[in-house]
């Protein structure tokens, strides 16, 4: 199979690369074209009806789309993508809008809503796979395959609302990813429609090929749109043991985490909640029975074969006590286990009681740095006069320092953002990263330069150009525009580039 011959493609070097194309060239005409494909009632153009799409799950960021289109079938989706390509129109794909990085916001461009594409196309219980459309809700997939004794393992806290398509865009995680891995580890194959309208199938290259699916998963809607995806299903564990360990210091809880991991035990989940989070949860309708006077609790789950599992649970308990746990409680039945988990999964919601807005953060540090870093986060919070609630995946070192505040109070906003910046800078200095599962979106763009070298950011632009040389898919997200040194111009972009230079 000879490679297409010819000279290497030429690159245009522009000192000030133009920004991503941002404005729909002709919104009313485009809306009419799209309405012919999906029906007029599935295209929104009035500002008032678009209001609900101005934000996602992250409070504080708002962008107004020019129009929204909601295809109802695979054929309609492909036709919409081809119409957008024809019109050279930028677009932003969106699932349930539960993302926490502003990634699904459309700034004056077309919003492509995928929630109507919610068919479970096939379930193969023998091979343990399911093929689904992108709008299928994460928890409904698990519910649908439950009769086979199977489930879909990635379990973000928003799983009752978020979609598989969104999970793929973000490479979503969840508490049980400690043992079972993130979304990428559960995706076998995907049919995607590229921004130029081409339909193609991506896989991990296991049969001889580049890992194009690996590059696509987590690309935050910048590489194309999933038409259908085949995911791996996981056998329900034979047995599950859930423990709640309570500590009089956050440091002791973090130490227990390290001790459990060092002992060679791989829990299914290992979650830490600090006092501020416990207080918020216990004061809410999601009260889970966490001890209010604890400085921190660990929610630990071990699962798998019944044989040997109690030994693992006993070892976990011993490590917790060794680290200074006051009490270690074991959930007696499924109901108690569900209650303990509900408190954890609804913790973000519970913080809504504390203040009208919530700054959500998502950083990862090497596990052994957790205890020191949590001390540091507390000091940073004190210095800025803000209350940090920590609720996070301790086993992965994946922090979620959240700050409830009132965004209408400019002074409070300033202090919150100052504290967040300092926390993130500190995490990067510890060899960590700025997002473990929420994605970069718009929210984390300012940190990308601190985390990556100019060469690396430029190479990320190159990777995007493999899938979307026109850069119309989710413009302006993930990698700062100025980081793309070389503007590899497609016809549409080249025209824009010429205009930008002329101006």
């Amino acid at each position, binding site marked *: 199979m*000879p490679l297409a011959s010819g000279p290497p493609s030429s690159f245009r070097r522009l000192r000030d690369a133009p920004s991503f194309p941002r404005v729909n060239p002709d919104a009313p005409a485009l809306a009419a074209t799209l309405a012919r494909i999906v029906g007029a009632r599935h295209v929104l153009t009035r500002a008032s009806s678009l209001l609900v799409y101005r934000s996602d799950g992250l409070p504080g960021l708002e962008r107004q789309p020019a129009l929204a289109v909601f295809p109802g079938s695979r054929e309609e989706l492909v036709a919409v993508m081809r119409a957008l390509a024809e019109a050279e129109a930028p677009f932003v794909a969106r699932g349930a809008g539960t993302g926490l990085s502003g990634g699904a916001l459309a700034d004056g461009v077309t919003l492509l809503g995928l929630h109507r594409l919610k068919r479970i196309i096939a379930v193969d219980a023998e091979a343990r796979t399911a093929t689904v459309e992108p709008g299928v809700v994460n928890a409904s997939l698990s519910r649908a395959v439950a009769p086979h004794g199977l489930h879909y393992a990635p379990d973000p806290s928003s799983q009752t609302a978020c979609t598989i398509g969104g999970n793929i865009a973000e490479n979503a995680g969840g508490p049980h990813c400690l043992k079972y891995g993130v979304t990428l580890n559960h995706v076998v194959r995907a049919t995607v429609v590229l921004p130029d309208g081409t339909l193609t199938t991506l896989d991990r290259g296991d049969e001889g090929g580049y890992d194009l699916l690996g590059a696509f998963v*987590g690309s935050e809607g910048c590489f194309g749109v999933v038409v259908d995806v085949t995911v791996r299903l996981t056998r329900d564990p034979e047995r599950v043991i859930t423990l709640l360990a309570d500590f009089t210091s956050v440091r002791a809880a973090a130490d227990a985490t390290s001790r459990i991991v060092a002992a060679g035990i791989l829990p299914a989940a290992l979650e830490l909640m600090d006092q501020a989070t416990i207080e918020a949860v216990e004061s809410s309708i999601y009260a889970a029975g966490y001890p209010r006077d604890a400085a921190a609790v660990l929610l630990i789950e071990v699962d798998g074969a019944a044989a040997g599992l109690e*030994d*693992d649970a006993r070892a976990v308990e011993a490590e917790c006590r060794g680290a200074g746990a006051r009490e270690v409680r074991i959930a007696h039945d499924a109901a108690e286990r569900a209650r303990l988990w509900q408190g954890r999964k609804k913790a973000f919601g519970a913080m809504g009681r504390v203040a009208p807005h919530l700054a959500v953060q998502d950083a990862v540090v090497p596990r052994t740095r957790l205890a020191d870093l949590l001390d540091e986060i507390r000091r940073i919070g004190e210095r800025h006069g803000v209350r940090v609630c920590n609720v996070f995946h301790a086993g992965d070192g994946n922090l979620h320092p959240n700050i409830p505040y009132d965004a209408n109070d400019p002074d409070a906003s300033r202090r919150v953002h100052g504290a967040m910046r300092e926390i993130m800078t500190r995490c990067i200095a510890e060899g960590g990263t700025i*997002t473990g599962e929420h994605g970069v979106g718009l929210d*984390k763009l300012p940190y990308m330069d601190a985390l990556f070298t100019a060469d690396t950011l430029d190479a990320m632009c190159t990777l995007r150009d493999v899938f979307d040389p026109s850069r119309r898919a989710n413009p302006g997200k993930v990698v700062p525009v100025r980081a793309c040194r070389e503007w590899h111009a497609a016809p549409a972009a080249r025209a824009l580039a010429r205009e930008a230079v002329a101006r």
Partner: protein
Amino acid sequence: MTAPGGPTHTPAGTAELAALVRDASARRARLRIRGAGTWMDAGHPVRDAEPLSLEAFRGVDAHTPGDLTISVGAATTLAELDEVTRAHRQWCPLLPWGDDTGTVGATVATATDGPCAAALGRPRDLVLGVEAVDGRARTLVAGGRVVKNVAGFDLTRALTGSWGTLAVLTRLHLRLRALPPGEESWVLHADDAGVERLRAALDAFARGPLAPMAIVRLGAASAGALGFDGSARALVRVGGNAAFVAESRSRLAACGDARPADPAIWNAVRARLAPEDRARRWDWNALSLRIRERFDPARLLNPGLLGDAA
């Protein structure tokens, strides 16, 4: 040292390597990447390329046992990686086809998995980050030492398994696992009359809750290659705590004639039962062509290795 294609380049670090790639590009020369030299003929022959040795990128850069992560140079051998991690009762279960004289860089560059991959993870699952110099002489630092990371587009996934045709891998960050506290290997025998029953019983075992580390089914040829007679039908490797291993042992005994096997048998499996290299049937679809063109426009890295006409 002189080799076909001219003297071997041995850059001492990434800056020298980037300069070498820039220089090669200017001279219209091509480079053949070499770690330990264990898979040089894996795919298609690479002709008219200057040998590029990565021997300077060898050794462990950082290992924090409590983090269950390690950073190593690409030319570090699998044996060295295993020795360092085992000292802390940990391992990086790459266990690829071949043997431990191969390098970590080659294992990741070719995404070569092995008999335990389904249970313990493939190279694509175990690589947390890479450092590399691409065909445009850019030095890439992607991913990192943390176990969860979705910052930016995933260069680590794009480069893992790209056979050195997009970039030269210089350093890898890997996920480690704790060694199981107990481990046993079993070979299951059956005569011709009992084969079907054994197969069904093993299928049920594999689907059950006692997830084994590996199950390798043996035909007459593969059994012979491992030194077993024709009645050996499968090899099973189990690992876990004492109660788990004991339960696995009794279930396997119920499957049929289970006899204990020397754990060293897995080295023989890796060395003697390797499947055909995937490099021979590379899928050059439109996106594959484009990714190759954008990261290595002059096709100066490992030209022709994957059947791309040099």
